[in-house]
């Protein structure tokens, strides 16, 4: 009886791990079936919507483009059993900023006479070696921890921008942590993006 129980348990574990792996593979389309569409029919699903597997406590970001003249709705859904009740979410603009690099370089050179021969004395020569390099900076545009932990946001876009939707999952509460300790700390997150041309309202 005992070997049978062991083999049953092993088979169950194999099935469980297969289903977890499968669940992780399936995360790519998680947004399609789990995130709620806007009730405003003018919003269309944006091709940059994406699902991904996210590990508890590790930041994951989805980098997208938002166009000037469009309104967007971004909603985030997730596997609460694994990732916890609420996610920390931020919208961050990524900006490429120029910066002058380099500076003054001082070298010692021989002083030459009128025939181009060294006179035996030296002089300090300062040259400026400057070039433009670019840094990638981030500007936080919205943070749900300052907005009642909202899991969706609607906004108008008046300039084309590179945006990162950043998410971080706290994991389940203490009472449910056994599951996480058993290795189940990766769950699905869906990011549904919808867009419409910014409508003109009013007179």
């Amino acid at each position, binding site marked *: 009886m005992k070997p049978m129980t062991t083999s049953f348990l092993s088979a169950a574990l194999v099935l469980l791990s297969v289903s977890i792996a499968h669940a992780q593979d399936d995360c790519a389309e998680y947004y399609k079936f789990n995130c709620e569409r806007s009730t405003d029919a003018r919003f269309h699903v944006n091709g940059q919507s*994406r699902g991904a597997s996210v590990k508890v*406590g590790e930041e994951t970001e989805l980098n997208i*483009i938002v166009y000037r003249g469009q309104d967007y709705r971004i909603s985030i859904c997730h596997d609460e059993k694994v990732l916890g009740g609420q996610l920390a979410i931020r919208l961050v603009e990524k900006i490429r900023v120029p910066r002058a690099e380099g500076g003054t370089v001082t070298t010692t050179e021989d002083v030459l006479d009128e025939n181009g021969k060294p006179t035996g004395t030296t002089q300090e020569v300062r040259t400026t070696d400057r070039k433009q390099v670019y840094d990638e900076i981030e500007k936080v545009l919205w943070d749900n921890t300052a907005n009642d932990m909202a899991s969706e946001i609607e906004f108008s876009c008046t300039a084309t921008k590179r945006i990162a939707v950043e998410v971080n999952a706290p*994991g389940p*509460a203490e009472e449910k942590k056994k599951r996480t300790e058993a290795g189940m700390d990766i769950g699905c997150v869906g990011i549904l993006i919808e867009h419409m041309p910014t409508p003109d309202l009013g007179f």
Partner: protein
Amino acid sequence: MKSRILYLSLCSALAACGGADTVDKAPALVIGGEDAGASPASLYQMPTPNELFSLVKEMAGEGHKRMLNPSSNADRYVTLRARAFNFGVYSTDLVYASCFKLNVEVARYYLTTKKLAESLGITGAFTDNDFVRLEGNLTRGDSLEVISNDGYMAAYAKLQEEAMGPTLAIVLAGGWVESMHLVMRQIEAFGKNEALMTRVAEQKVTLEHLLLLMGAYESDPEVAGLYKELVTIRDIYDQVNVKRVAHEGASTSGRMVLGDDIQMDLTAEKYNELVQAVDRLRAAWTAVEDKTNVSAS
């Protein structure tokens, strides 16, 4: 005994369901806090071309089929990089044709895109069933746009699923170059238009995004040359003055406005440099390959 079993079952059921005494207090966590990972896992998505074309369509009237890469060239791309790049080109042409309701071209470019998709191993994105659906909807422009865009997104997803990173990078570069080409030709056909020029200027942002996406495969021999050529286009964009100003007032839709307004001063000289650079790159990568001289990858 029976009632005891019932009680225990009830207790375990309540525990499993997270009963009243197990309040789900999630640990406090903020992004960028000490408990966050040093570098986040980054995923990149490129916008589908229909989003740009629908904005351009508002300003630039009708589409022109002469701007598209001739579908007859499709059989003459031999190397993997040429097939991948031109798959990006043709799928963008398909979306353009459906967006501007060039119905005959939609059918033609659907089949062309399907053929190249198959040669790249992306089966299932452009199917015979969808083609039948497409043919049945040739008089319904909106449906064509949906079917074409679905095909584009399915191909994109398939390349991601199959971890075909370098191929995806080349496909997306082909799509970006063709989008730029089509918008620039639209400006030529429609006449200089400040709003359209601004759209070209704003493509600086999508190019930066594309290069970051491609950066992971920068050293891949199939990607390296194309990456460098795109960097030279970014260098032109870097010479364009960009001014950021805080947005004033509410959006016309009443929604919050996210971030600053951005003004880009794209001069005629810089615009011409961009046109030449994009034309050069497109001409080189859409040129048909001589099958006798090219070793297939």
